[in-house]
């Protein structure tokens, strides 16, 4: 146990406010090794408390240089006590005086026993019926703005591969009805769990359901891998977490053409050994998504949330406000771009329904950045499944570029404008909420023989194209107002989305003066991975044989716009017969 005492109350207050630690009744504060430097920088006097044998990880070339009295290398870990992480050597040693060890090696010492925090908790409402409105997180992630789309709708897609998605958590109950039908694998469990991969703590199953649940998740074209490091009564130490990360690395190395996302909805106090392990993953091309944490502290003191190499996710609520419990990053406040941030993106994380471990048809309400992390993992898996040659770096950039910018209300003291980015799912049907409506271009006439327009008014394929680098072919899909043969050629559409409409060569009925024609623009990626479709675009074609002005006829049709048809629209929406 390492203790810190402050002579100055202001220094202590500052330290406690930064770290959210509690002081003892005698005014001292028990601190983890990772905070010794911070405590000393605030004039804290750090001392070794009760001498108790603990294991530590010492970053040093060879154990022979460790001279702390009564310090033993624990040789039953790694190769004779040597663990490697990102090219660094860490020796597992045992000593009663961790502080002496820390000082001998200028801080290059980590605790093995790390305080692990799961970043989500079941708040209430354990049920076997998903309540009305439960789906708001998916609809939020599927919508560019407000009001949200009424349903969670996905575009037509042809996935090119199934990424491996690893949930490092409390285990997963694959038999839950939300997860049925997925390809799954039990990848790793701590030896002390004796081969029990199932979830008795209610965290991993919920997170998995936010990634890939039928009703609660975002993306299902993936392989779901279970990496169990917790149960309801046991939390892992740094060496065990390192083993779990090694299992992910080894799995990835079996076939590096299969991309991998690793979800970590938990944090530990900053730990350079584990950060080395995470860097092993990210430098190999594995995407790591993690929760920012829920205690309102600075993630710069946490692993992996405080790492620039991983995607750290904070939580937003149903109103698009940042959750009050979010951790933040002091370092990010000075970053002026969206690259190199600690907290990278937001996703829904307050009052989220997910699978509950207590039964295959049970659900619970869940809050925390754990849930947000699960959604971003699902979003990342969708990119990796859909976009050719997307791996960690490119896919992360796509995730950021495709996000909804500026739509959240954040605490300006904790977050920057560059962090105001909300997850948007790449496979979303992007005209969600518009598909029952039509975009009106105008009326063709002798005076107005052509109408020009631009597809991006109603279709955001170019945002997709810019984010993914994929090129699109644009096609016109006609409505049923006239035979296709009569409509062919009356629209010229270039690949930048500009189109020009001219009067089609229609067969006109006697007394027919004007006809409303509709079409859609289909944007099909060259790789055929995704097809995005615009809502209806409409215009009036006019009978060229009618010599009189048709302005009045068109105006009459349009007159219906303002009042009566409005009421018809809302009466219809109220389902009055």
């Amino acid at each position: 146990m390492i203790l810190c005492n402050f002579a100055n109350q202001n220094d202590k207050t500052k330290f406690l406010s930064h770290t959210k630690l509690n002081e003892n009744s005698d005014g001292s504060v028990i601190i983890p090794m990772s905070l010794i430097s911070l405590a000393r920088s605030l004039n804290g006097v750090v001392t070794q408390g009760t001498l108790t044998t603990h294991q530590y990880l010492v970053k040093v070339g060879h154990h022979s240089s460790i001279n702390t009295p009564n310090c033993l290398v624990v040789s039953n870990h790694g190769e004779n006590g040597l663990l490697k992480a990102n090219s660094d050597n860490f020796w597992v040693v045992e000593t009663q005086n961790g502080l002496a060890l820390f000082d001998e090696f200028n801080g290059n010492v980590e605790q093995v026993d790390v305080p692990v925090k799961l970043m989500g908790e079941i708040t209430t409402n354990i049920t076997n019926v998903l309540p009305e409105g439960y789906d708001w997180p998916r609809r939020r992630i599927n919508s560019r703005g407000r009001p949200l789309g009424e349903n969670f709708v996905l575009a037509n897609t042809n996935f090119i591969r199934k990424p491996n998605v690893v949930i490092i958590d409390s285990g997963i109950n694959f038999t839950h009805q939300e997860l049925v039908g997925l390809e799954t694998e039990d990848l790793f469990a701590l030896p002390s769990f004796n081969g029990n991969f199932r979830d008795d703590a209610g965290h991993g199953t919920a997170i998995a359901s936010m990634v890939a649940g039928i009703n609660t998740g975002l993306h299902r074209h993936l392989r779901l891998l279970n990496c169990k490091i917790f149960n309801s009564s046991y939390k892992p130490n740094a060496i065990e977490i390192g083993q779990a990360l090694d299992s992910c690395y080894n799995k990835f190395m079996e076939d590096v053409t299969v991309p991998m996302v690793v979800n970590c909805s938990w944090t530990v106090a900053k730990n350079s050994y584990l950060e080395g392990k995470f860097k092993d993953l990210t430098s190999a091309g594995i995407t790591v998504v993690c929760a920012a944490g829920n205690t309102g502290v600075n993630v710069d003191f946490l692993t992996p949330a405080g790492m620039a190499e991983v995607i750290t996710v904070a939580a937003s609520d149903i109103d698009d406000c940042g959750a009050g419990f979010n951790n933040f990053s002091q370092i990010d406040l000075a970053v002026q771009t969206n690259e190199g941030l600690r907290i990278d993106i937001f996703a829904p994380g307050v009052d989220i329904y997910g699978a509950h471990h207590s039964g295959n048809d049970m659900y619970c309400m869940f809050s925390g950045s754990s849930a947000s992390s699960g959604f971003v993992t699902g979003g990342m898996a969708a990119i990796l499944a859909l976009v050719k040659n997307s791996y960690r770096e490119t896919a992360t950039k796509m995730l950021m570029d495709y996000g909804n910018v500026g739509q959240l209300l954040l605490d300006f003291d904790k977050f920057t404008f560059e962090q105001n980015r909300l997850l948007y799912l790449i496979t979303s049907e992007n005209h969600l909420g518009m598909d029952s409506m039509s975009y009106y271009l105008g009326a063709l006439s002798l005076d107005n023989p052509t109408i020009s327009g631009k597809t991006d008014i109603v279709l955001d394929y170019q945002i997709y194209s810019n984010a993914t680098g994929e090129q699109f072919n644009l096609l016109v899909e006609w409505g049923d107002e006239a035979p296709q043969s009569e409509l062919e050629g009356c629209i010229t559409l270039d690949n930048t989305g500009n189109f020009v409409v001219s009067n089609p060569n229609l067969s006109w009925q006697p007394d027919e003066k004007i006809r409303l024609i509709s079409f859609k623009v289909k944007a099909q990626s060259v790789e055929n991975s995704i097809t995005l479709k615009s809502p209806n675009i409409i215009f009036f074609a006019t009978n060229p044989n009618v010599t009189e002005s048709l302005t009045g006829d068109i105006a009459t049709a349009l007159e219906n716009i303002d009042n009566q048809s409005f009421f018809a629209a809302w009466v219809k929406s109220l389902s009055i017969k």
Partner: protein
Amino acid sequence: MIQLEKKSVSDFSDVFLYENFLPSNVHKQIAQFLNGIQNSPRFNFEGRAINVGDKFTKLLGTNHYRPYIKLWDLSHQPSYWKQTKTTVNDWATNTYSLVIPPILRLLANRLLQIQPLTYKNYIPIRGIYNLLKPNIALDPHLDGEGFLADSENSILYSATYYVDVEKGEGGEFWDERGLLHKPKNNSVLINQGNVYIHGVRKSTETRLGVTLRFYAIDDLILPTISGNIDELLYKPTVAVQN
């Protein structure tokens, strides 16, 4: 062409101007939000529809040069039409979070704390993304929808929050009484939108803002007495389309 005498905001007791209206970081976030949606297709149901033959078509938008993007309209929520004057205030407060982006909710709440929006109980019925491209004027017009309130006997306040309007020549707000006002960023101009014809002159640069329209609850035409839609005071004359 009639040349009106140029007058400033201070010449009118019914036009309200607030400069440096919001803290700079809130102003910046509103700018970020509005810039962020510039290139996105938007849900933009204008409450309009076309009946041609047997086809009933709701309009998503029209091919205007000025991207008239409706950010929200409370009257497009079907439940709006079930409200009465005693329920609509609470209903609106609950509905804001569903339809109004939070940074604009913050703006709306701030506006509701200043004159003239403290005179009565107002609700921000509609929000409009206000982007004028270079050399495009906002033509003379009156604000308001006849089905929401009696335009001749009520006042609709239009509050425009200016985000990025200072660059370039022109871009002045004007009204039929001779008011001519060149706005500044982070200012709000509140005018009686349904009373005096108004518009915006062409600017040499893009001009970005957001307009919130406020109706007093007492002025709203709510078609039911009890909230029961079977007791509509207003009977639509058109057939309901299936």
